[in-house]
């Protein structure tokens, strides 16, 4: 794994704690600084406070969903990767990578590192 990612931070947003926990464990082990949030609103506050380098968000969430969150976060110039259990892209904003669940971690890692380097 590329160790140049060490200082970079990622915010994981998913209402499914089991998935976000596993993601967090993995990405920390890859050397990222990882925070988690369980819904879009919580995520937005976190983004404003911590200015992460990337937001990895589930599409389907209560309060503010991944699509709405992506629009807000993109406006701040922070890149977003969307994860979704739905098969179609639906209304995902243009230019936002869209990864269908379940995903291959190598593919997801490739997308993340592409954005961050």
């Amino acid at each position, binding site marked *: 794994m590329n160790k140049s990612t060490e200082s970079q931070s990622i915010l994981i947003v998913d209402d499914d704690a089991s998935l976000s926990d596993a993601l967090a464990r993995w990405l920390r082990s890859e050397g990222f600084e990882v925070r988690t949030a369980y819904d879009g609103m919580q995520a937005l506050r976190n983004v404003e406070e911590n200015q992460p380098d990337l937001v990895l968000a589930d599409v389907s969430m209560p309060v503010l969903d991944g699509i709405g969150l992506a629009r807000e976060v993109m406006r701040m110039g922070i890149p977003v990767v969307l994860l979704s259990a739905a098969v179609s892209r639906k209304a995902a904003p243009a230019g936002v990578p869209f990864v269908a669940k379940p995903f291959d*971690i190598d593919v997801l890692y490739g997308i993340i590192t592409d954005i961050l380097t």
Partner: protein
Amino acid sequence: MPDLPDVFDGELGQSGTEAGRLDHTSAASTIPEAQIFRALIDNLFSGVVFRDPGRADQLLVTPRTLEIWRLPQGDGPSDGRFVELSGDSLTPFRELIRWIDETLATSKPERNRVLAIDRGDGSRGVIMLNIAPIAKSEAVSAGGLAVVFDVTERQRAVAEQRFLANASAILASSLDITPTLQKVAELGVTALGSWCLIHLLDQEDELKCVATSGPELPPHLADFVFDPCYPANPDATVGPYQVMRTGEPDFVEPMDRDQIAALMADPEDIPNVLGLDLRSMLVVPLIARGRTLGTLSCFRTHQDAVDDPHVLPLAADLASRSAYAIDNARLFEDARAAEDRFRTVFETVTDAMLVSDFSGRIIEVNRSACGLLNQARSELLERSLEDFLGPEIPLLSELIDAAHQPGGLTVEGTLVQRRGRVVAVEINISIARLLTGNALQILARDITARLEMERLRQDFLAMVTHDLRSPLAALRLNAQLLLRRGEYNADTAEAIVTQVDRIVTLTDELADLVRVESGNLELDLQTHDLMEVAWAGVDAIRISHAPDQVVFHQPDGPITVEVDEHRVAQIVQNLVDNALKHSHAEEPVEVTVRMVGQKAAIEVVDQGEGIANDLQERIFERFGRSDAEKTKGLGLGLYFARMLTEAHGGEIQVESEVAVGTTFRVTLPLSIESQ
């Protein structure tokens, strides 16, 4: 015949002897006037009667006069031109003699006087007469001359025309056939006989009397003439049954014992009928469009005028007119019944039906159409169909083309209601073939509910996919991490187990759904204490929650029910799970097991957000979860709770107030031994 006076030997005769001609200047002057008059009298179609006031006991009549009176020619002295009548043979002429004498007394001619006469054969005739006094001098009458025309036939023709015109007027007056036929029978008596009856075949093909007229009869005689005893014998070779079989008129005269016996079913009735003094019976068929509908019967007694050949055609004519009137009334009745049947179907079908002409003008709508378009019938008729077609539906011209194809055209789209509101519909357009011409027939069905159900199904499918993919994503991630590290990691392995359990729970729920939907849910019914069963459900939830978040109130004593313990525990689990989802962590959910009336009850009470009234009906439905909810799971918890409760013969109810809380109550029947 020396005794006979020369009737032309009066004033006329004298003028004849003076000049010997009628017209002194004419070329025919060589013929004596008397001869001309004699020839005239011999060839007159009218009868001539001469009356000499000096010989009051006699009357001179021409042979033609006797013919008119239907008297024999043979009696009395005759000069070959006049017959002298006297004594009894004057009797038929008494009325005429009275008129001639009256005319002689006044010396004023009488013209076009109509007189009814009794004729020698017993029949009645009508004559028209002109009476002229013949003066011997200014003061003395030489006699009276009457010229007699037989107008019996003409009078009869006029009377028959009037009779039939009356009949037609009666028959045309109403389509209610029974009272109309009664009037026809009453009219028939005036021309056809003493009694007139009409029989019709009823729906069971039995001949029934529907109208009678004539003098009232004592019961034992009425039995014969009137229904139900007449016509008594269906096998009779005379009378209505025979006419029904042959379709030919039947005229019976005289009505002697044999004929009456042929009509009667019971010979004991014969003397009664003989007492009616019947002369004849005429039965004519009522035939319309080749079918014999019934009969018209006329009875004449010996007191009625003699039957003549005109009665049969008159009765036949009346019967024919009546038959067509009956037929018309029945056709009208059939048409009206058909219209009624059609109307009933048309109005009661749940599909909206509209009929329009090819210009799109609406000519008929049913009740469902009024409901679907939310407009009164009067507001729709005469309007253009195009006013109601939504944009997804082809233009009228295209609809008309498509309607002519076999099966017509079926499309989905919208119809426009009042104030621009639209309703989703499936529409079939075809051609209606009406008597008045072809028209466009539009069947429309509200598919709002169907579309909603389709949308819910799709949402459900998306939800199932989503809820399976999320744990699968975590499962795959954890498995990949284990592979990558190549070493055992307890957290990762535990996460894998949790994800598999989630997937199993989901697939169980789906399997339950299939069982419930297909009615294949099997219950393992055993006798249990409801408290224990409910506690199992509560306990399963408490494992994953703070201990004081669910409070359990148990009853004073055991409540015995016959239930599938796992399913009832599942009901409780679903209700408690739902209550926890919709309430705040600091407000506990309370579960109470108690008796309510004669039933066992489990109540689940929360102090959460509550359910709006309009949503309360939907929460127990499949896919009834509101759109706003994004909770995990298929949203089938309350639906299962209801289905499982009902499978146990119980009921589930909800009482809720927004921002106050919700109470779910499941009531179950007690086991038989505890009742």
